[in-house]
């Protein structure tokens, strides 16, 4: 993974559990125009690639290539892809650059650099894109269609994205504080994260370092509103129920929740309603990493699944940075400190996005 804390899973995990937020001011976005300059940006992309996103992704591709089987399928999850190419096309009047912003070009580049020969797809489901891609990968492997699927979630920050979220008044003037009583909006972030989903027999036979077992998965829609979540959280609740049924688990089996937790008033309230309606009798501790990494959009689902997998291995759940004074609906379940989880650690991760997209993934320890 590549996060605002730097390249690599260790840097990402250590940064998140350190309790220090990567959200800070930057000079890329003008304070005079936008409500904030704060975002969690990846430090120092080389500038040698054709877009900021490829600058972020390229070194990671090089590092993971030896571990990705040639016959793997590729699911590239993104919301806006190489959107800075489109920005340059519009600013410079360069129509040929506009065509380059088509995500199929990004898909083909990633596929080529990884030397993958399997089928490849761009997957987009708003901010649940890479969670939906993980669910699709689990479908592909469980039906025997593919033996290995690489899920690559990535999004970069751009003026386009910043302008859009500003327009919707979704940004916090300061920093995202998921589930805090003073929360006032999200902070944008950027990341790239990669997960190889494999059939268990092959993973064991190849002596792979297995992070976690995908036990259940589901995606569904609110069918309610283009930008706002359903106030009662019934879409997410149904999604969680489906994932639990698929896993053959009950609410009692969930021992922690990695929530979407954007830090907007409505998202976090909706999530708490959904969690309480499905898991209410078992108040599993929950957290959001978006006070640390910002909202990494299309990368969020797979990044958070990888952090959840790491939390299973380490018997620890990360802090919710910014949740110094949890809102009454999350009190006792959210903390700005790391917490220990022992025995049968099973994590529910959830993501939601514009258009009412919801995804839920249940991860458990490997056998």
């Amino acid at each position, binding site marked *: 993974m590549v996060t605002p804390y730097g390249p690599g899973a260790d840097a990402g995990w250590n940064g998140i559990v350190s309790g220090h937020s990567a959200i800070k001011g930057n000079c890329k976005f003008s304070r005079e*125009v936008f409500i904030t300059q704060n975002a969690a940006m990846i430090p120092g992309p080389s500038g040698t690639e054709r877009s900021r996103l490829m600058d972020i992704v390229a070194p990671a591709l090089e590092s993971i290539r030896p571990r990705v089987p040639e016959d793997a399928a590729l699911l590239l999850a993104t*919301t*806006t892809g190489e*959107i800075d190419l*489109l*920005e340059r*096309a*519009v*600013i410079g009047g360069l129509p040929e650059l*506009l*065509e380059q*912003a*088509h*995500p*199929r070009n990004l*898909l083909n580049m990633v*596929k080529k650099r990884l030397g993958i020969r399997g*089928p*490849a*797809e*761009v*997957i*987009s*489901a*708003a901010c649940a894109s890479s969670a*939906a891609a993980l*669910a*699709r990968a689990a*479908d*592909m492997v*469980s*039906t025997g*269609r593919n033996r290995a699927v690489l899920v690559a979630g990535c999004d970069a920050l751009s*003026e*386009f994205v910043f*302008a*859009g979220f*500003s*327009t*919707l008044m979704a940004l916090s003037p300061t920093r995202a504080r998921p589930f805090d009583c003073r929360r006032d909006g999200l902070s944008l972030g950027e990341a790239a994260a990669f997960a190889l989903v494999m059939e268990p027999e092959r993973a064991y036979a190849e002596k792979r370092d297995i992070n976690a077992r995908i036990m259940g998965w*589901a*995606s*569904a*829609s*609110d*069918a*309610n*509103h*283009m*930008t706002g979540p359903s106030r009662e959280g019934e*879409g997410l609740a*149904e999604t969680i129920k*489906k994932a639990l*049924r*698929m896993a053959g688990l009950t609410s009692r089996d969930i021992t922690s929740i990695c929530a979407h937790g954007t830090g907007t008033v409505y998202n976090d309230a909706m999530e708490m309603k959904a969690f309480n309606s499905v898991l209410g009798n078992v108040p599993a501790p929950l957290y959001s990493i978006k006070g640390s990494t910002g909202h990494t959009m299309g990368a969020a689902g797979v990044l958070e699944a990888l952090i959840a997998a790491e939390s299973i291995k380490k018997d620890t759940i990360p802090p919710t940075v910014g949740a110094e004074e949890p809102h009454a609906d999350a009190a006792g379940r959210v903390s700005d400190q790391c917490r220990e989880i022992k025995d049968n650690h099973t994590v529910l991760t959830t993501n939601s996005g*514009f*258009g*009412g*997209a919801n*995804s839920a993934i249940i991860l458990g320890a490997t056998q």
Partner: protein
Amino acid sequence: MNAVVRAVAGIESGTAFVRGKELDAEYPLPAPYEIESIPQLFPDPVKNFGRFPRHVRAACAACALALKAADIRHEKGERRDIALFAAGYEPTLTINREFFKDYLDAGRTMGRGNLFIYTLPTSAIAEVSIHFALTGPAIFIEADSAPFERLLDVAAQMLHQPYAPDAAVLFWQDMEKTLCVIAGPGSDGLEDNKRHDQLQHRAAKWRTPGEAIRHLKHARAVGF
């Protein structure tokens, strides 16, 4: 593992058509995408329809026709577990360019929120899910080759999972054409497998929604 086609609707320049057991019709359109001329298209008015970008309006219209033809009634307030999959990025690129140009023209201050919400490739299927209360997953999938063949394959895989949606609505769009197909889970029988394989085989050759529409306009092609 298969998916069988229950209805097909297409909208292209000057005409809209629908093929299914319950409805088989063609409607002349006075101008490209002028779908308001189709009689009794929507059982209930679509909220903010006039403000939708035209590819979003076309997706809603094609879905209305296809659901009718598949005999999937839309009762107000009734939610249905039906998945939505979309392919075709061209309309998204166009809206993205429009949003960013508008933002630049406004002096790089504020963009238009009602344009920004349509800058995602799932925007059209999100509006469809809202109006028709379809609560299955809504996902944009752009394959490296043969986009519609992949959508059929995705539907077949998903519809045979435990706790799967009841059906899937597949969209393939460019700026001028919209294809909408309702797919349901097929049986394990030879006939359904054969129909699925034949359609997959044909779909592998389609490069644009227009090519798919030309083929699927003829009812025999989908085996009704």
